[in-house]
């Protein structure tokens, strides 16, 4: 077990449709949730990383605003963006800052206030996460991009709409037990299969909803971590990789090469394999994304992701529990706020604080956080003593 950089606290706000707060207040709530648990003074924070995707709110350069509201000046702060994976990119950079010896305590705060935009404009902003010269003029959207992968996966491997629906049935089961989730209703197979079509073959409940939310993760070096907590969660491996932004420039449309490369790097660094993971949080912005994640992370063979959910192997009592907090599908997906929330769940699981949904004897956890349509991928592996 590597003991170099620890998560000493993680917190989040509820993920909700219209939060009634400004972005600085939203970030404060998330940071408070983390910082209160270890009683840390803002002046002990050596640096902060603020993560979100631009263009939802009008604040230019939000890092200094958030840093000011949290009481961090004069310590360094900066903004990081890799759209939906901004939060874990922040954790990756925080890890490097501590490992290099430059800082002892780094705070990552990720946020998004998506309710600032109407759904039509939000679709346009997200669609511009594709090549704005050659692709966006055709009306590409985020659901559309994932739908292209879903259709290709079905044609190549026989994955079914029912298997996709089963992902949402599972995640809604756990979402109904997560008090911070945006969508708390339990869904059955029939409701998922009969829902309105958004982008063939993806229906309403195959898609996560836009919402507001923030999360915060506090990282510390080994010596300093002990001062704040007797339950540090140690970072074992950080893997990151990127695919071409333009979907038509990519070799594969049935898996995310970015995730495969990130996973390889993270597993190698941690000295573990997929069979060693006890609990995972994966980026299920769409049901198909969770099926792809099963395969790209090595939990299932290529083409057999659907089988894993058929066997219910990813429930909290199964072989490899995945998204037992509701996932993005039921928790909601406030772009920059998502990665930190995934980390928070893994930290709670490894500390044994998850009650009804606790995975028995969870020692090694994995977070998979993807930006865009498989464009950026972070895979981070955590361990407890």
């Amino acid at each position, binding site marked *: 077990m590597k003991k170099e950089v620890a998560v000493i606290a993680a917190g989040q706000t509820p993920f909700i449709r219209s939060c009634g707060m400004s972005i600085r207040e939203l970030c404060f709530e998330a940071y408070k949730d983390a910082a209160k648990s270890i009683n840390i003074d803002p002046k002990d924070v050596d640096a902060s990383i603020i993560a979100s995707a631009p263009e939802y709110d009008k604040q230019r350069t939000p890092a200094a605003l958030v840093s000011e509201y949290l009481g961090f000046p004069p310590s360094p702060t900066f903004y990081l963006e890799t759209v939906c994976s901004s939060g874990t990119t922040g954790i990756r950079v925080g890890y490097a800052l501590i490992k290099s010896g430059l800082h002892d305590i780094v705070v990552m705060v990720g946020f998004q206030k998506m309710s600032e935009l109407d*759904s*039509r*404009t939000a*679709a*346009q902003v*997200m*669609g*511009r996460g594709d*090549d*704005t*010269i*050659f*692709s*966006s*003029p*055709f*009306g*590409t*959207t985020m*659901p*559309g991009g994932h*739908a*292209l*992968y*879903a*259709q*290709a996966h079905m*044609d190549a491997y026989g994955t079914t709409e029912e298997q996709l629906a089963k992902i949402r049935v599972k995640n809604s089961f756990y979402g109904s037990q997560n008090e911070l989730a945006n969508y708390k209703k339990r869904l059955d197979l029939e409701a998922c299969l009969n829902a*309105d*079509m*958004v*982008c*063939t*073959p*993806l229906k309403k409940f195959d898609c996560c909803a836009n919402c507001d939310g923030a999360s915060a993760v506090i990282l510390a070096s080994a010596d300093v971590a002990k001062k704040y907590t007797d339950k540090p969660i140690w970072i074992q491996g950080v893997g990151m990789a990127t695919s071409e932004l*333009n*979907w*038509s*420039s*990519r070799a594969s*449309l049935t898996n995310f090469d970015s995730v495969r490369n990130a996973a390889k790097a993270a597993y190698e660094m941690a000295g573990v394999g997929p069979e060693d993971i006890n609990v995972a949080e994966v980026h299920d912005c769409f049901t198909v994304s969770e099926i792809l994640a099963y395969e790209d992370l090595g939990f299932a063979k290529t083409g057999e992701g659907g089988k894993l959910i058929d066997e219910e192997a990813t429930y909290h009592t199964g072989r490899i529990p995945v998204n037992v907090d509701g996932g993005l599908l039921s928790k909601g997906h406030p772009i920059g706020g998502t990665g930190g929330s995934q980390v928070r769940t893994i930290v709670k699981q490894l500390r044994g604080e998850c009650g009804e949904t606790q995975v028995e004897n969870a020692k090694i956890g994995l977070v998979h956080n993807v930006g865009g349509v498989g464009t950026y991928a972070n895979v981070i592996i955590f361990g407890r003593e």
Partner: protein
Amino acid sequence: MDFGNFGVVNFTKEAKSVAFVDYLSEGKLMGTECKKCGKKYFPPRMDCAKCFDSEVEWFEIKGPGKLVTYTTVNFGPSGFEEVQPYTLGIVDFPEGVRVLAKISKKIDPTSIKAGMELRPVPQQLSEEKLTYEFEN
């Protein structure tokens, strides 16, 4: 012509590869190829990522190619209110490139299948605007 003439909506006018739009107005879908290393690019680009001093030349993508994947979008971004639903497809062309575009409404959506043969057809959207679609 510039990229302000391309597509249902667009976000930028200037690019060195602007001849792409002129070719389109002449009824041709074009990619670029690096003269030095032979790498083919779509979307077209005037710079080769491998060779700094390369010259690129244009080549026409005629097809037919094979449909790799597709989706019918029922809720489009702003600017697409009037054209939704529309079907997007990605096609592999024998010229060695992969291209995304809308699949023509002339094709019965229930007949759209992976592997079907499609070719790119430049289209005039209005007096000012043009695009290309996939037809069979």
